[in-house]
């Protein structure tokens, strides 16, 4: 289960689990964002929103891929996570898609183009 907790509130993805056109777009770590492991969890600062969030491991993993490897499509992120976890990309995709829009809303990632 992919989730984002903001200021103590758990946000759930609205609408369909798969964000529209998510696999057609390249996404980037938003400038000025921060991600930090602290104790048993993660905290992040959204450069585009100014919000601070608690993240779970799965959300943090998505952000790490985009921060460390540069802009990538949703499918490419799933492939990178699959390579790390040993799971198939198709197995990871539903969970990743569930929280993707929340990461966008939190200002942690942003679309950079609609290329392949």
């Amino acid at each position, binding site marked *: 289960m992919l989730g984002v907790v903001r*200021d*103590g509130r758990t946000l759930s993805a609205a609408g369909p689990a798969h964000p529209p056109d998510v696999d057609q777009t390249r996404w980037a770590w938003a400038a*000025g964002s*921060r991600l*930090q492991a*602290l*104790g*048993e*969890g*993660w*905290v992040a*600062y959204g*450069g585009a929103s*100014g919000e*601070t969030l*608690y993240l779970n491991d799965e959300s943090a993993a998505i952000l790490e891929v985009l921060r460390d490897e540069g802009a990538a499509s949703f499918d490419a992120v799933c492939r990178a996570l699959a390579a790390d976890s040993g799971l198939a990309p198709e197995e990871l995709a539903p969970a990743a898609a569930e929280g993707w829009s929340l990461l966008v809303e939190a200002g942690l990632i942003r679309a950079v183009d609609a290329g392949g």
Partner: protein
Amino acid sequence: MPAAERGEAAAVDAAAAATGAPALGRADPRQVRAALRGPGLGLDLGAATLRVRSDAPALAAALQSVYREHPLATALPWVDIDLRLDRARGLRRWLRPLVRLRAEAAHPFEPFPAATALPLFEWGANWMIGLRLHECLLLHAGALERDGRALLLPALPGAGKSTLTAALALRGWRLLSDEFGAWDYRAGQFTALLKPVALKNESIDVIRRLAPAAPLGPVFEKTRKGTVAHLAADAQAVRRRHEGALPGAFVLPQWQAGAALQLEPVDAHALFGALAFNAFNYRVLGATGFDAVVSLVQAARGWRLVYGELDDALAALDRLWRHEVLAAPG
């Protein structure tokens, strides 16, 4: 206060000590009243300076009581916060004398009864510090120093923060602040914002029982926060208010009637939230605030303290300090 002016303020302090400028509590009351009515009375709190002007008759003596060890100053090299407390005009002043706070160009609070000018001044000063002092991350916390390290007591109102802060100060810890854990993120140290400790309701008698000679100021009854009294900072705390302190420990206090003592470690993840989301200016500082809280959580550990008896809490903090904080590597 900018670093250069802070150095200058410390130099002014040293000069005042050398020339025998009196502490406010020992100054001639006429001199204090004249300063309030004229150029203003300067208060150097450490990380910030404040100027207050007033024609409220009750304020001079109250300030002399609760800022008794601060030097009398009428000309500071830098003023961060400028306040006026003036008697309200109009016909009502004959029926019920009121005093009104002006902070720069604004009147942030409704007028208070003239007799409670000091609580109004204290709340107004805290309000302005929270609004203006963004050179520091301002944790909502009691702050004290021992062995060069700072003990921070972040808490929500009603948790017993001020009572515990006052008690520790009376047991030899150096008071930095009752309200603000002022983290100077550029210097990497906590700094003092040295004002009196505001005690409310039952905590006033708790402190009187702990230390019958505690330097408490006048008691104000029926204020908006109930009965209020202020504990003056001691001479050592005032003299050293420009000395910083490295992070030592964060203790999240919670007083509960009849509770047995509990002191448990807090995970860094939870500590982050306790610091960031209770800070006065965390959101204002943006990414700098985030980085500052992360650095604090990495620099010092946190504990949660539940207590019913003040003596138990003091003993537990003393043990914690000796065995966990001073003994910790680095």
